[in-house]
Structures are given as structure tokens and as C-alpha cells.
């Protein structure tokens, strides 16, 4: 209830004021675009921050500001100030009361790839930092859109100890939700690198995948209900707590992965599984991608229900992590491929017996060449960090071109080899500063056929882009993969949706967008 009084009025009364005339398509001149994904200052691992990124509108000159939207004026700011009733609920860059620096965090992303011209941030409803952890520019404004930040909507409303159903605001930080659940013996069915700063509303809006999708499934299955606000102020009250509900279209699914383009998620109810007491992690090495596939087959058959993650890493990715951290690999020597296996279950004796048998088996059959098994929690975390630390370490040299792809398992790694070959043929990869590319690496959630193809670069360079695109997308279309497995479309992948979806499918999506957001004010210039 609390959130209705906070969020819906922002949208509804904004319409009434003439700022957004959602119901009247003729009054287009006075529209102002709203961008509605949970966002707030991004984590930055370099002091330089987003100030050094190019404006997205300059980097993408093809994107033109929609003339239907009006420029933000001091009147608009005064209106929202009055509405929200608190000075701190709003960051105003229009009337010039705020230094440009205060606005920067909302205009940038953590990779420093996108930068907008936003002049007004609204924070309906406690203050906490977080968000903007997306990878495709889905949450960064392009022009002077208004940013709505959910970080003040951060209440956990209820938790049922028997069914494991959690109801919480969109602005709750994922790690906070997970720690709350840990106290009760449950776990949030999503885990990802940015968990300390991302909001669950944003996770749902982007249908985030993460490290344990293999075990807990996608948010399309675990989210039982949502409360969302449509652009005209209508509250979509579908905050159900039922696992089964076959009554009509399952409309909430449109908001899950909708990237805030048809409405803004305010609350979520989600089914949380029991937390496992017995967790083991093994880090294994194999001499080829084929061998790693064999390990995966064996893991599924021998570990069965306790397998909770199966992650792939190539040698290059591990070498770069070691180089950035000046640390040693957990294994001696170098191996072409590594995989991390996690098991979680309720009985450690049962799990240990299974896991040891499995490891002995793959070792004696020479499917793996070496491996280690975490002996305590510290080792377990440090093994995980070999995998989780890759994205951040790759950014060390300046930037990363990231592709998050679904590819049929047998072809998964072939793409990395093909891209590396093309980059080398173009003479773009090398150890010294004159080469833009540091290296081409592949890693990812092998258990979900999800590859992260990353090209670590010293600077963003058109020549590299020309080698990568549309080559990668065409390659993906050829094997019937997806150009965005778990990161979404945002701005980066918007124009490439055709490689993974047919014209008919895209047309249907546009119909839905037009139905709920006829004026196109929600997260404009993105998605479809």
C-alpha cells in the first residue's frame, strides 16, 4: 500500500498537470519522456567515473530526440517538488541548484560506456545507493529524460515461513533481500555479481539470469506476482502469491524482462527456495572444450539434484584475472579450460560422498587433467571469485565489448575462437598500447548454454566494432542462438533484435508497447 501513495501519483498526476498527456494523443508537444528502471549511482571502480564516457547521443548519432517530448523546464521541477513534498526526494539539474557532478551518477553506467543528458531525478518514497549495474545501456538516459529512482522504495512487506513467498518493494537491494531470507533459512532464487548494489525491481524488469539459474530457474517461473504502474497512472495490481493461477493471460510476464518499456515495477512477490546447508565447490581443468562438455554430462548424471552451478572459464580469462590481481591460479600450471562446479544440498555427508565419487571418476577416466576441492568457506569464496571476478578484471585496461549469448552447447566456444581469429587477422590484438584489443575471452553459465564473449580493450575503437558487428550477430543467427541471453536489449542491442526474433515477433512486441504506452514515454529510444 505504501508504494501506491508514493509512485502512482508521480505518473498519474504528472499526466493531469499537462506534463504528460497520456490519454490525449494530439497533445504530443507537451510530452516528457520518463525512464522507469530502478536506477541510482553505479559502482565505479575508477575515480574518473562516467565523466570520461562520450554522450550516448554523440556516440549514436542515429538516435534522434523525439520531438513529441517537451524540454524540461523549471515549472516541471516545481510541480514534482510539490508532489513529492520533500527536497531530498528529487535531484534537480534544471534550475541549476545542483552541481553537474551530482547528476553524473544517474547519467552513466558502471562500464562507462553510456552517458545521458538527464536533468531531473525523482526518488518517490529512505535513501540508499545502488543500481545502474546493467550491461546494455538499458538504464541510462539518452537525452533529457526524467529518471525515476526506486531506491527510496525499499521495504520488505511480508514473508511466509511455510511457503517461502517474499513480497518486497522494487527498490530493495538484492543482497539485503537475500540476507533477510538467510535469517529464515531461505535464499533469493537469483544470485549475481552486482548483488550488493542492484535492486530486485531492476532484476525482474530485466529478467536477470545469474549464477544459479541452472538450479532455481528463470524469474519468469519464480516471480509469482508484481505490482506495476502503467504510463497513464493505472496500477497493475497482480501481486499474487499463487504458484498456480490459470485464469486468463499471464500479463505480469510482459513486465518481467520488459526493461521498463511498458510500465514500472513497484513491488514483487517471489517464490524463494530453501537455503542449502551443505555447499561444495570444485574447480577443475580440462584440455579441451569437448572434455568440459563431458564433465558437464557426467556432473548431471552423477550429481543429479545437488548440482547448483556449472560455470565455464577459458585460460585467457583466468590469465587476465591473475594479471590484474597479481595472484596465483588455484591450480598448478596452465590448462586450456576451467570449470567450476557447485553442489548444494541438505545433507553434507550425502553430498560429499556423491561429489568425491564423481571427482574420482572424472579424474581416473582422465576427463579432467587437474582440480581442487574447497576445504572451507574461505577457499570456496576464493574459487568463486575466480569466476565472478572476470567482468571487473577485464575492465582494468579501459573498456570491454560484452556479448551475452545463448548458443547451442556443442558450438558454444567456437564463437570465441572465430572472433579471436578475426580480431587477429585485422591486426587489432597485442600487448602494447598501439593495439586496441587486450584479448578475446569466453566464459559463462555453461549449465544454461549461456556464453559471455568479452573483448577487453584499451579504448573503444570503431575498427574493433566493425570486426565484431554484425559478425557476432550473424554467427548467432546461423546457429539459431540468442543475441541476448540474460542482459536484455537496452540501447546496445536494440537494433539487432532481428537476428534473434522474426519480423512477426517484433511487430507483435511493438503492438504491445503501443497498447500500454501509446505516447512512448517509458524508457524511450530503447528495446523495440
Amino acid at each position, binding site marked *: 500500500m505504501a508504494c501506491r501513495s508514493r509512485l502512482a501519483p508521480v505518473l498519474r498526476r504528472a499526466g493531469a498537470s499537462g506534463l504528460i498527456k497520456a490519454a490525449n494523443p494530439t497533445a504530443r508537444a507537451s510530452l516528457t519522456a520518463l525512464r522507469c528502471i530502478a536506477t541510482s549511482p553505479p559502482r565505479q571502480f575508477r575515480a574518473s567515473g562516467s565523466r570520461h564516457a562520450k554522450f550516448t547521443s554523440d556516440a549514436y548519432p542515429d538516435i534522434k530526440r523525439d520531438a513529441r517530448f517537451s524540454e524540461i523546464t523549471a515549472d516541471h521541477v516545481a510541480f514534482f517538488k510539490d508532489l513529492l513534498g520533500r527536497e531530498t526526494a528529487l535531484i534537480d539539474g534544471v534550475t541549476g541548484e545542483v552541481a553537474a557532478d551530482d547528476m553524473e551518477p544517474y547519467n552513466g553506467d558502471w562500464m562507462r560506456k553510456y552517458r545521458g543528458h538527464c536533468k531531473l531525478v525523482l526518488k518517490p518514497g529512505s535513501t540508499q545507493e545502488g543500481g545502474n549495474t546493467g550491461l546494455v545501456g538499458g538504464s541510462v538516459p539518452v537525452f533529457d529524460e526524467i529518471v525515476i529512482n526506486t531506491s527510496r522504495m525499499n521495504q520488505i512487506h511480508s514473508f511466509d515461513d511455510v511457503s517461502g513467498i517474499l513480497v518486497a518493494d522494487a527498490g530493495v537491494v538484492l543482497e539485503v533481500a537475500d540476507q533477510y531470507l*538467510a535469517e529464515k533459512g531461505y535464499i533469493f532464487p537469483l544470485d549475481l*555479481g552486482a548483488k550488493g548494489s542492484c535492486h530486485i525491481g531492476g532484476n525482474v524488469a530485466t529478467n536477470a539470469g545469474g549464477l544459479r539459474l541452472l538450479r532455481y530457474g528463470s524469474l519468469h517461473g519464480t516471480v509469482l506476482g508484481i505490482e506495476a504502474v502503467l504510463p497513464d497512472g493505472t496500477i497493475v495490481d497482480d501481486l499474487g502469491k499463487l504458484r498456480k493461477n490459470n485464469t486468463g493471460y499471464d500479463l505480469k510476464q510482459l513486465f518481467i524482462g520488459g526493461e521498463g518499456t511498458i510500465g514500472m515495477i513497484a513491488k514483487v512477490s517471489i517464490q524463494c527456495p530453501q537455503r542449502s546447508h551443505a555447499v561444495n565447490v570444485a574447480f577443475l581443468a580440462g584440455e579441451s572444450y569437448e572434455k568440459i562438455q563431458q564433465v558437464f554430462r557426467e556432473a548431471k548424471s552423477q550429481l543429479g539434484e545437488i548440482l547448483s552451478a556449472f560455470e565455464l572459464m577459458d585460460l585467457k580469462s583466468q590469465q587476465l584475472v591473475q594479471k590484474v590481481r597479481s595472484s596465483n591460479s588455484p591450480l598448478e600450471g596452465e590448462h586450456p579450460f576451467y570449470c567450476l562446479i557447485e553442489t548444494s544440498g541438505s545433507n553434507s555427508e550425502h553430498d560429499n560422498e556423491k561429489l568425491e565419487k564423481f571427482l574420482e571418476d572424472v579424474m581416473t577416466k582422465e576427463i579432467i587433467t587437474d582440480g581442487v576441492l574447497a576445504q572451507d*568457506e574461505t577457499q570456496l569464496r576464493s574459487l568463486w571469485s575466480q569466476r565472478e571476478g572476470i567482468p571487473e578484471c577485464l575492465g582494468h585496461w579501459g573498456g570491454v565489448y560484452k556479448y551475452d549469448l545463448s548458443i547451442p552447447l556443442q558450438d558454444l566456444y567456437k564463437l570465441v575462437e572465430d572472433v579471436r581469429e578475426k580480431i587477429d587477422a585485422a591486426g587489432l590484438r597485442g600487448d602494447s598500447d598501439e593495439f586496441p584489443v587486450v584479448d578475446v575471452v569466453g566464459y559463462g553459465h555453461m549449465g544454461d548454454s549461456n556464453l559471455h564473449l568479452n573483448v577487453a580493450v584499451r579504448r573503444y575503437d570503431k575498427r574493433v566494432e566493425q570486426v565484431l558487428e554484425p559478425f557476432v550477430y550473424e554467427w548467432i543467427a546461423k546457429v539459431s542462438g540468442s543475441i541476448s541471453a540474460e542482459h536484455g536489449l537496452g540501447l546496445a542491442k536494440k537494433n539487432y533484435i532481428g537476428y534473434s526474433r522474426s519480423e512477426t515477433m517484433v511487430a507483435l512486441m511493438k503492438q504491445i508497447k503501443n497498447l500500454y504506452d501509446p505516447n512512448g514515454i517509458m524508457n524511450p529510444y530503447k528495446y523495440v
Partner: protein
Amino acid sequence: MSALRILVPVKRVIDYASKRALVTNTGNFSWQVKPRVNKAQTAVETAGVKHSMNPFDELSVEESVRIREKKRYPPGVEDICVVSAGPPKSQDILRTAMAMGADRAVHVEAKEGDEMEPLAVAKMLRALVDQEKSNLVILGKQSIDDDAAQTGPMLAGLLGWPQATQASEVAFEGDSVLVTKEVDGGVETVKAKLPMVITTDLRLNEPRYASLPNIMKAKKKPLVKISLSDLGVANERRLKVVKVTEPAPRQGGGKVEDVDGMVSKLKELGAL
């Protein structure tokens, strides 16, 4: 000069990382719930909490194995024997120590919850030193559960051997051992002749991961089970635990709107 016979006592304790499970940083996840004091306020609840080898003991095992591998003591290392007293689960950490490179293990069986005081442990270790003919004992400077830091010094006292505590470096010179420890503003190096007792500190080394081939080999290494009475030692208790309580919950901080707000807050608190 005879070869080294190293005795390495190890203890099974609540996992150090799970102790801080709820204050992890971004990117880390935790499955464990923070240990709590039991209802009777007599001890920390251990059921369902993850256990592992005391981190200082891991350093002792690693150092012993490195002395052998790096051939730091010319006559060589003849034997590395790990020992632990505790419930059957203690065998897990003995196997881990053997996977790291120890040759064999002795398990002194005790019932779950049968705590031993440092003096009893030191007496047990003295008996084991006699039995195993050890000439070097390397043990953690303290265990992270009781934090008594008494066992090493008491053992040296009982044996009448020299001791060097909180080692951050161990080197050999003839039949003498040079042990460096960190002190305020620098390091201090002491020298003693074998046989001796060394206690280890965190900067000594970085323990290795147990590799799969070594875990498999460790299963076949000898592990002997004995009881405290076999060693002629009784578990005497001189101390009675009166009460165990949790620290007072931390007071949350407050936020101020601006510099003026901060100044008036500081005045209010009497800091200005």
C-alpha cells in the same frame, strides 16, 4: 644432525568465513548463517554451522610441507604427523591436512562437546611427542574459537624445549632454527636449537588448495585412532564457564542533510 620429525596439532573449529557470513561484500555470497550463543548461554551453538580447520593450523601444515619440499633443512624431513582431538568429524580436517602433504594422522577421540582446556591439550601433546619421537612441533598461535593462545607455550614448558611464537618466517642454520616474528615497528628474529616448539602467525605463508589427486592419495594415508587415556592423560577441567553472551547490537548511524546539520549534531553529542 638427524632428520626432522614434525608434529602438527590441528583443531576443528567453526569456519572463520562463516563467522562473518552476514557482512560480506559485493560479489561474495554466503550460504551460512552467523553462529549464535545457545539458549542456556553456556556456549556458541555449533549444530548446523560449518566447520573447518583452524586457519593458524593450516599455516602450520603448509609450513611443514614447505620445509620438506623446499629442502630447507639439509638432513630432510622424515615425518609430518598431524594430530587432532575431537569428535569423529575431526577426521575431515586430518584428511585435508594429509591432502596438503602431511604423511599420517593421529585422531584422539573425544565426545561431541567434550571441551579440553589448553593445559590438558598440552599434556596430551607432550605424551604424543614422546610416542612419535618428534623433534619439532609447529602449531597455530591460537585457535579462533577459544582464543586462549596458551597451548604452544604450555607445551614448551612441559617439554622443557625452547619456543618461538608468532612465526612469520622460519629458516634453518645448522641444527638451529631462526624464527622471525612481527613486532611493533619491525620484525624480531630469534634463534634456538632443536628440538623446539614454533607457533605460527598469519603472515607466515599462504596455504595451498587440496588438489584432487592429493585428496585421493590422502584417503589411503594412515590414520590411527586412540583415546586420551591411551596416552595416560585425563581431561581435567579447572575452569567453569559462567556465561556466554553476544556483543551488544551495533547502533545504526544517522544521516545529516548538510554541513550545518553535521555541526549541530556534533555539538549535540558534545564532540564540538
